[in-house]
């Protein structure tokens, strides 16, 4: 049976992880490669690296990081953050990334999704969508959630599916950072309206939140950062609870 995936997300700046400072058992918590290997060992199903650096050297640094991670890691990983062209994606995939995640660049240039899925296959194209509930309507936001648009979340999700996205990574900005649980209502609706996997992101605070997002939110995977980095939740323990709740997981 296909299992539900648990995906730690690592924020990367200039080739180093940020936020991961309290992750114990590591001499150098800032080393993404070491951190990635530790997560793989602890039962993570997949990893996401989100590059938040804004230097001119970014492309080179990221390609090198991807290569170093691919050399060590025996589980799949996705790279995102500022990817805006076929060439960007080509470099990352050639260096060993399994998937790339695009966000603002897809909204600005939707044709990019078609180009990427035709050239590299849908399976490696994740479209990340940040949205916020404004007066009862979920509106897509850009640039890490800073810039609102008039685009409806569900319309956009259907469009990215049609254009060839292989997966949707949905972050509710209303839930992100609150630790009060994932946005299960819009997640469940996304799962009904599109037929590609949905990754839930934003709001994880405890184990029950994960159970809820798989059961009520019908998510295929759940992504979180701080609860894993700060060891508030251990992945193996989490998966044990998910299994007891009748949710299929890889143990």
């Amino acid at each position, binding site marked *: 049976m296909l*299992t539900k995936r648990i995906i730690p997300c690592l924020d990367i700046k200039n080739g180093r992880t940020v936020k991961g400072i309290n992750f114990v058992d590591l001499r150098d918590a800032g080393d993404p490669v070491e951190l990635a290997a530790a997560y793989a060992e602890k039962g993570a199903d*997949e990893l996401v690296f989100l590059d938040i650096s804004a230097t001119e050297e970014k492309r080179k640094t990221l390609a090198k990081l991807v290569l170093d991670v*691919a050399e060590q890691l*025996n589980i799949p990983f996705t790279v995102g953050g500022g990817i805006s062209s076929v060439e960007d994606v080509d470099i990352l*995939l*050639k260096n060993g990334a399994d998937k790339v995640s695009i966000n603002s660049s897809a909204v600005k240039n939707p044709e990019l999704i078609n180009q990427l899925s035709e050239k590299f296959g849908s399976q490696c194209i994740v479209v990340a969508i940040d949205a916020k509930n404004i007066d009862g309507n979920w509106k897509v936001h850009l640039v890490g959630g800073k810039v609102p648009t008039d685009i409806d979340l569900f319309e956009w999700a259907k469009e990215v599916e049609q254009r060839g996205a292989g997966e949707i990574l949905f972050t509710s900005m209303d839930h992100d950072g609150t630790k009060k649980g994932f946005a299960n209502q819009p997640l469940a609706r996304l799962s009904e309206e599109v037929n590609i996997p949905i990754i839930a992101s934003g709001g994880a605070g405890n184990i029950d939140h994960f159970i809820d997002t798989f059961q009520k939110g019908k998510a295929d995977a759940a992504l979180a950062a701080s609860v894993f980095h700060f060891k508030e939740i251990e992945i193996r323990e989490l998966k044990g609870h998910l299994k007891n709740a009748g949710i299929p997981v890889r143990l």
Partner: protein
Amino acid sequence: MKKNQKIVIIDYGAGNIQSIMFAIKRLGFEAELSSDAEEIRKADKVIFPGVGEAGSAMKMLRSTGLDEVIPTLKQPVLGICLGMQLMCNYSEEGDTKGLEIFDADVKRFDNSVKVPQIGWNQITNLDSHLFDNVENGEYVYLVHSYYVPECVDEIARTEYGINYSTALHRDNFYGVQFHPEKSSKTGEQILKNFLKLDLRS
């Protein structure tokens, strides 16, 4: 296991081969990339990778003449993901004629399940030395929209809405739908088993 064996990954411009190179390196071996028929024929083991779309991948194989080379190879050959699908008779994807090594026609999952299937699923009914020391029901990583229906060459089965063949074997040819290079310790064991095979038919 022969330590200094020659392992060639067929390079025909398809997909992410870096991960397979690294996975083999982690097992203590070196693999080389080649699109040269003679180099491929000389290898002790051949890996036939593939990510992307069947029609365009087949075109790339034809343009290099590798479509003629692969079916005549005598050493153990492992097709991975699209590589395995191209070794079948036919694929619905791009209405593509395959290499006719495995007697099966590749189909698309219907919309009763999410397509592509992405994630970790179980392999069962294991029936090959490729799965030595791998337990029935272990998890492997899969990413695919097309699948091989259950067929005579099946050596492992997976369920996703329906039962289908996730691994195939005929003579010196092996195929796996999953990505052993991304399937944690289970995948490492399967790659190790492949490198242990010493038949040359």
